């Protein structure tokens, strides 16, 4: 896992610090648990390294667009990373539904970007943009996609380097398929992309059509995460009890990401 980091531009001491944080977190995974199996500690360390790397330009939150609160964690993480980055990290939200994207932007003060996807040519046009507030929040660009193909096109438009699949709504129909398709296309294009499978969906045992019949009719969200992700988290994004159920002791996913980045930033500043 560690060897994958060497190609990312980051001062070696900062990188080593991120790796050490990941190894430390890994020690809090119960042996044999899902958290242990998914290497959630090492994954968080690697994510912290990517977020601090100047090579990373854009951090996308692949959201469910089901709640107003989904973006809070991503914004705070970017603010933290920007303390030690030379070039600020861009943050975008990409989720299913244009009306939802607009209302979420309006309530939270993001910039709503209205797009139109051409299914024949694969071209994505920006129809309009509206910035709902000044300051950091206004800099967050929020997109609504009609389906997976438009979602992938949005990631290309913003040249996304890192994404986190958001909360538990729509995981099998939008977030995981978008991340997986984009991963394949980035690999074919010879470009880097660090995909994180997070959110409540990864901790659940849902079947995509929920038919409740036959063998192996569980675990689809876990499987999808395993198919495309460079780091997979344990259970629900912000509920410590759910993460603990999966075998990681201490805190929820969002706090764990925040804490990993905060400690990595503090180490980088001290060096």
């Amino acid at each position, binding site marked *: 896992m560690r060897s994958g980091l060497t190609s990312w531009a980051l001062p070696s001491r900062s990188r080593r610090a991120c790796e050490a944080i990941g190894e430390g977190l890994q020690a809090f995974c*119960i042996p044999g*648990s*899902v958290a242990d199996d998914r290497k959630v500690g090492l994954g968080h360390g690697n994510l912290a390294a990517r977020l601090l790397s100047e090579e990373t330009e854009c951090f996308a939150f692949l959201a469910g667009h089901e709640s*107003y609160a989904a973006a809070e964690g991503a914004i705070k993480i970017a603010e933290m990373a920007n303390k030690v980055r030379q070039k600020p990290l861009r943050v975008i939200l990409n989720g299913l539904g244009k009306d939802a994207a607009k*209302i979420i932007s*309006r*309530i*939270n*003060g993001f910039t709503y970007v209205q797009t139109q996807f051409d299914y024949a040519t694969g071209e994505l046009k920006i129809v309009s943009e509206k910035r*709902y*507030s000044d300051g950091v929040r206004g800099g967050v660009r929020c997109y609504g996609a009609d389906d997976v193909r438009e979602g992938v096109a949005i990631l290309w438009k913003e040249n996304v380097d890192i994404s986190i699949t958001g909360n538990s709504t729509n995981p099998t129909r939008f977030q995981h398929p978008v991340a997986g398709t984009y991963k394949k296309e980035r690999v074919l294009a010879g470009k880097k992309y660090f995909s994180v499978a997070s959110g409540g969906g990864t*901790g*659940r*045992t*849902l*079947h995509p059509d929920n038919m*409740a*019949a036959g*063998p*192996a*009719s*569980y*675990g689809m969200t876990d499987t999808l995460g395993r198919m495309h992700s460079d780091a997979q988290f344990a259970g629900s994004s912000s*509920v410590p*009890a*759910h993460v603990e*159920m*999966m*075998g990681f002791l201490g805190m929820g996913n969002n706090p764990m990401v925040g804490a990993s980045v905060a400690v990595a930033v503090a180490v980088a500043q001290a060096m």
Partner: protein
Amino acid sequence: MIYTKEVQQMCCVAKGANHANAPIPEEGKWVHAKEIKDISGLTHGIGWCAPQQGCCKLTLNVKDGIIEEALVETLGCSGMTHSAAMASEILPGKTLLEALNTDLVCDAINTAMRELFLQIVYGRTQSAFSEGGLPIGGSLEDLGKNLRSQVGTMYGTKLKGSRYLEMTEGYCTRMALDADNEVIGYEFVNLGKLMDALKAGATGPEAIEKAKGTYGRFKDAVKYIDPRKE
């Protein structure tokens, strides 16, 4: 057991398929479930009634096939709240199989029970990968600190637009509108906190102030409205 004459006269063909059934994940173990006592886990089921006027979210914590804990949440029907009260007494202690067929007559609760049964016997519980499952009391986590259900009540008309009445954070007291008259935030009173403050001896206005909060760009509004009166 009696065999018909036709079967008695048949010759025997050996049964070669001898594997166990497909295992399901339960409380961190992979189980070949054969009997109801082989089923454990905490999970949810959602149900509705024939006239589709109310619904129920049922959460059960099952250990070795027996319901040790039941959380019954209902919406949209006053009678169902009373059926839920009965269910909270009837369901605990029953086996999963018994619970499918109690003498409760609320469609929504019975349908929730059926849907939950399907989830749990096919290995789709919340605690599928949790070593040892969740402690009894785990279902209360769904209610949050003040032990109240997560309920949303919103209303909208073509003519007058949207109204937020109740959010997960609490009772909506005001909605915030921007210069375009569009919603940009809301103010709420958390009823759990309000009751805690009142029980601790605060006056009404003090308790309301303590339990108040806002969401979104509430402070940036050019206009505030009472969603119930304006």
